[in-house]
């Protein structure tokens, strides 16, 4: 009896030592890694488990992603508070930057191969479009349509 318990204890100790480093125990490092993903992958990562979903829903992760794709004035606290008031970086990316970047990479500039297909959008333009969408939502519209032009056209043929 005692020998079996010792055996189990040994196996457990071995497991702990051999299991190695668990990313889920270090949420900040997880967040740091996730900030390097692109939008789609971040969305996929959010479906992995509850912890990852929580981390992926942090606005700071999306803020880093947005900052990578905009030119002009990103990253200061003034911008941050305005974006937060308009709905947050995650929504900015989902509604505005994401579709716009898809659109720009589709009609992409082949003269910029080192950008790896990542296009840049001006911060002022994206925030302008975002603010119009936010304004339409104020009326309680379920599906404001002002940003629909960014989505890829549906082929109904």
């Amino acid at each position, binding site marked *: 009896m005692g020998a079996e318990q010792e055996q189990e204890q040994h196996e457990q100790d071995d497991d702990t030592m051999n299991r190695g480093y668990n990313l889920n125990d270090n949420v900040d490092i997880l967040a740091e890694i996730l900030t390097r993903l692109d939008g789609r992958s971040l969305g996929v990562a959010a479906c992995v488990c509850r912890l990852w979903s929580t981390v992926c829903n942090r606005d700071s992760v999306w803020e880093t992603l947005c900052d990578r794709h905009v030119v002009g004035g990103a990253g200061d606290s*003034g911008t941050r508070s305005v974006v937060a*008031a308009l709905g947050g970086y995650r929504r900015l990316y989902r509604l505005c930057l994401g579709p716009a970047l898809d659109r720009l990479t589709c009609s992409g500039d082949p003269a910029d191969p080192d950008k790896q297909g990542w296009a840049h959008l001006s911060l*002022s333009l994206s925030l*302008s479009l975002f*603010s119009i969408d936010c304004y339409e939502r104020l009326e309680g519209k379920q599906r404001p*349509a002002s940003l629909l032009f960014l989505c890829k056209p549906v082929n109904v043929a």
Partner: protein
Amino acid sequence: MGPYGSDSTTVSSTACSGPEIDAILTGTGYGLSTSGPCHVANPDYSIPFNPSDVTTWVDSMLTDFNSTSTGNLHLQPIPATWTDQICSPLNPTDSSPSHALIAQQRKEEEDSGIRLVHLLMTCADAVQHGSTGLAAGMVDEMRVLLSRVNTLSGIGKVAGYFADALFRRLYTTETPLSVTDHEVLYHHFYEACPYLKFAHFTANQAILEAFEGYDRVHVIDFSLMQGLQWPALIQALALRPGGPPFLRITGIGPPSPDGRDALREVGFKLAELARSVRVRFAFRGVAANRLDDVKPWMLQATHGEAIAVNSVLQLHRLLTDPGTTPAPVDSVLEWIVGIRPKVVTVVEQEADHNKPTFIDRFTEALFYYSTMFDSLEGSRPHHQRQMALAEVYLQKEICNIVCCEGENRVERHEPLTQWRTRLTNAGLNPVHLGSGAFRQASMLLTLFSDEGYCVEEVDGCLTLGWHNRALISASAWRVPDADVSPDDDSSVIASNSNNCINSNNISGSDDNNRISM
């Protein structure tokens, strides 16, 4: 007003906006099928399906490619392939058309299109000379031709609208749109194509540059509509280095017919947005049916604030037949100069629809709106309903240009060169729209799904066009020596005018939300 836009698979789900759309379309005459003279061959030639039920029409276009014609139809719905389309009128059972047949069909369509345009011109000429009998005969002939041409796109569609407008000129009187209908159509036009967005963003850029360094700023909007231009400006001011100024917006618009104060509602929304981004904000609504009813004292321009006057597609309504002076626009320009704004942003259609002779106007309008409709189709807006309503918006303009005369004709578009002369004569100096505005406009256009749009810079003004034909222009102007403090007469209280002026104040700030009347 129901929610705009819905999934492409659930077009008929927003039933609450259906009756409104029916009302709009009935108002524009599409529901009429029994009015008109008895020799009219087929009353609802212009749209193949029951025109007062847009949702069913849209559904059938999207899903039902193989339906047989019903009732008054003389056009098949859009078939799945182009070859089917051109072959079905001739030989519906033939499933393997030959190339010769296709080529012949194509040539016939082209010929019909050319014949239609020729007929339109001749008919307009007849109308100008007063030979209504001849014109009526030609309208009938056009109807017959239209039944053989595809009126769902291209020249057939535009010709259909113009033929319809000629018909209205001959037989009916054109009723103006109600205010709410006009707003709905405007909103759909805003969403369907980039012209209005381009206008708003360019004007905002000019206003932003003019407001640099001022702590109190005042924007006077000549047509508020739903205030879609201002969220972007509010946001840009919030992010201004040095902090946002105190922003006042005065929105001018027609009084709402049903008692609700539409201007005030828009003001509330703008105030809420401004509050969320911490911009001190105040709104004032001025209800007036015509811009020349507005007097400067109603705007309450005060000392020390930077004023911007914004006119999007409004100044042309104040013009009259060329040669008849004085035009109302001159008095409006006079008081604009009088309040000494830092910038006046003017957006107008780039077209010459105010020529004295009817045939000249008609020809110009035909080419202008052909290009416009071309661009609408090219940009493939998301929802068929959105495109249909955007087209109704344009159709109202066409009818006004073709059918109305004298005071009723408000769509008196003039080209940028003529506006330049007019504004310079009124005492305004042009402001060169910077490269920032150009870059922003170009970037905005890359986001639209089609590549036919082109932004050009013409002497410091920006124009947006389709395939090298400019369709809308945006320019900025200022008063010379505008840094001198404003005159005192702008705040003199004059006697109240009875032209249904009603104004209210809404102000919001971080600390309190006072609403004062």
